[in-house]
Structure formats: structure tokens, C-alpha cells
């Protein structure tokens, strides 16, 4: 591995550790995501009662919960730096891409950690069942990576704006739409118990779009981060 890449990863790990440490102390994003997900799931769960919804409805419901949970919590990593005026201090300490990668990893860990709670809760509240786990897990994992990538990059852009909340939802949705469409279709196939070969196109779309977003983010982040 070239020394520059090793240095970049080492610096990213330092940012990741700092954000994790700060999150464990304040539980800012953790609480925002968990509360949103639990309240939404509970409200929908009680409203449908014992009725078992079809896969066509369950799949979008799952991704609506995941998408809005991501929106409500994942932007904090950048917004907090600007609000607490620590962003300039960070700019003087680390390379821009190390900051982006570190924060991207933090968001990945945060969302995956919460999905361990949110997804089983979804299955319980919605009386749902994934018939094909070999489709469900790759779709959720790659789809979540895509959501994190979109949310992290848009958060970096909007953290410099004054109307952050509204801008985040407006900018993130159109960019996340291809991910949501492929993820919802893939999840529906998993709920219906389709064979793995049926979801290959969805997985390819999710994977390609996630790689594109990460690549574009790494190429553009320095311009976004430097004022």
C-alpha cells in the first residue's frame, strides 16, 4: 500500500475515533435516529394493527423509515463541526479527504448499529418476514452504504449554509432516489422469496451508484470543505 494511502487511512481512523468518542459522550445523532425510527415504526405498527401488509407496501415502508432516520441523524457529523465552530480547527489539522472518509465510516457504523435495532423492530411491528435472506442482507447493506454516502456528502455541502434543515431534505432526496428505487425493488423481491438471480440488476445498480457517489464525493470534497 502506498505511504500516502496509508497516511490517509490513519488520519481517517483518528477522525472516526474522535467522532465515535464524541457521540458516545453526547449521543446526539444516536438519539435523533433512534427516536425517529422507533416513533415512526410504533405509529405505523399501531395504525395497521394485526393486518399483514403485502411486500409491495412493506418494502417502501422499510426504506422510508431507513431514509428518514438517515436524514435525521447522519448530517450531524458535519453540521456539528460548523455549529460548534470546530470545522476550521479540523481544517488546520487534517487533509480534507481524511476528514470525509473518517466521517463516512462513522456514519456507516452509526447507521448499521441502529439498523440492528430498527430492522428487527420493523419485522415485529409490521408482522413482516424476509423469505429470501440472501437477497435481503446484500440489498440492505449496499443500500445503506449508498444512503450514508449521499447523506455524508450532502451534509458537508449544507453545513456551510444557513438554512440547513430544509436544504438537506431538498438536496438529498433526488440524489438518493436511484438508491431508494433499487433498494425498494430488491427488498420487495426478498419479502416475496424470489430467487437470488432476480435481484442481480438491483444489486448492480445499488453497488454502481454507491461507488459513483463515493468517488464523486472524494473528488469534490476538498472544494466543498475549503471555503
Amino acid at each position, binding site marked *: 500500500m502506498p505511504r500516502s494511502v496509508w*497516511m490517509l487511512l490513519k488520519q481517517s481512523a*483518528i477522525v472516526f475515533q474522535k467522532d465515535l468518542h464524541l457521540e458516545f*459522550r453526547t449521543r446526539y445523532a444516536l438519539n435523533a435516529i433512534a427516536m425517529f425510527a422507533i416513533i415512526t415504526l410504533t405509529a405505523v405498527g399501531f395504525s395497521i394493527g394485526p393486518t399483514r401488509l403485502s411486500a409491495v407496501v412493506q418494502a417502501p415502508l422499510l426504506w422510508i423509515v431507513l431514509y428518514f432516520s438517515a436524514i435525521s441523524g447522519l448530517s450531524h457529523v458535519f453540521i456539528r463541526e460548523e455549529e460548534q*465552530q470546530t470545522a476550521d480547527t479540523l481544517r*488546520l489539522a487534517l487533509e480534507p479527504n481524511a476528514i470525509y472518509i473518517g466521517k463516512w465510516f462513522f456514519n456507516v457504523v452509526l447507521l448499521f448499529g441502529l439498523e440492528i435495532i430498527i430492522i428487527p423492530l420493523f419485522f415485529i411491528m409490521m408482522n413482516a418476514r424476509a423469505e429470501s435472506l440472501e437477497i435481503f442482507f446484500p440489498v440492505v447493506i449496499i443500500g445503506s452504504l449508498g444512503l450514508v454516502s449521499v447523506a455524508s456528502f450532502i451534509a458537508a455541502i449544507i453545513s456551510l449554509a444557513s438554512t440547513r434543515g430544509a436544504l438537506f431534505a431538498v438536496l438529498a432526496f433526488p440524489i438518493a432516489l436511484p438508491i431508494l428505487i433499487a433498494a425498494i425493488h430488491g427488498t420487495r423481491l426478498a419479502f416475496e422469496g424470489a430467487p437470488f438471480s432476480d435481484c442481480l440488476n438491483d444489486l448492480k445498480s445499488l453497488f454502481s451508484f454507491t461507488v459513483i457517489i463515493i468517488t464523486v464525493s472524494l473528488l469534490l470534497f476538498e472544494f466543498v470543505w475549503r471555503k
Partner: protein
Amino acid sequence: MKLVARDIEKKFNRRRVLTRINFELEGAASLVITGINGAGKTTLIKILSGLLSPTSGEVSYYLDNTAIPREQVYRHIGLVGPYLQLYRDLTAWENLAFFAKARTGGVDRQRILALLERFGLKGRQMDPLKSYSSGMLQRVKYVMALYDQPRVLFLDEPTSNLDEAGKQLVYEVVQAQKRDHIVIIATNEPEEIRLAEKRVDVA
């Protein structure tokens, strides 16, 4: 180390803040930036330290006659200013260890402890920064900025929030820095203006 500022201009929308700022500093040098409130002292410090891009003009750093790429300049810079904040939910030690690791890859505990002692903070390093007074926070910023002995030290309102002992410490820091490296101060305080050999007025 050599710092060259050439034709620096900065506009915020249509409002021009800085007009054709030019200077050159090399080796052991000191510069003071003066100007009335709102004249652009902080803007110039931010541009020189790479935190802000100029509308036109160029800031270049050279080490042994080789230009330092912009994305690497931060490694040679220390900055103390009112707009640079630390993580108030972390302790002073956690903050300093984070920035030490970020800038140098490791933590020299003895160096941090020595700086904490010099700035009168030893014994309080395990307290969260949210329990610190503004003067103590200013002292922590000095510990952070001086940790890896930067070749260029920027001080924006260097003695704000500091008591008399703190001010004397800052004057010592400036004297030590300008013996070997570059120090740039943004201030209007007569005593601080006298610390530097060169002067740029942004009024």
C-alpha cells in the same frame, strides 16, 4: 520557510474587503496586521492560513525553495484565533491528544504536559472544556497551536480573554517564535504591534 502573498484581494458578494495585499516573509520574521474593526484582518489571516480562498491573488509557501502544495500547508501552520474552537464536550487532554495525533500521527505526552504547565493548566487537563473559563480556553488553544512547533504561527487577537500573566506568556511565545520562524499577528493593541518588525495595514 518562506511565505509570499501576492495581490491578495477578497470580496464578499460585491463588498471588497481586501485590496492588493503584497508581502514576503522568510526565515525568522514577524508581521503585524492592523486595521479598524471590519477592515479584514481576520479575513487576511484566514486566507494566509488556507482557511479561506482569496477572490484573486495568491498565497505561496516555500520550504527549502520548494513550493508546498496547498493541501499540505496546514502541516506547517499553527493558529490561535477567536473563531477556532475546540470540542467542548471533550476534556482538554482528549482535545490535545486528538489534534496531536491528527497533525503528527502520535501523542508526545511529555510535550503536552510541559505546554500545559507552561500555560498554567496542569492539573485541569482531565476537565471537560465546557467547564473552562474563556481565558483558560485561550490558553488551551496556545497549547494546541504550539504542540508541533509550527514554522508559521498566526495569532488573531492574541491576548483576548487573557489576564496579565497570560499576556506576558503570549509575548514570550511571540519572541521565541520570531527568533527562528515566522509569526503573524492581527491586532490593534499598541503593545502587540511593537512585537513585530513588519506591518501591513488593511484599513
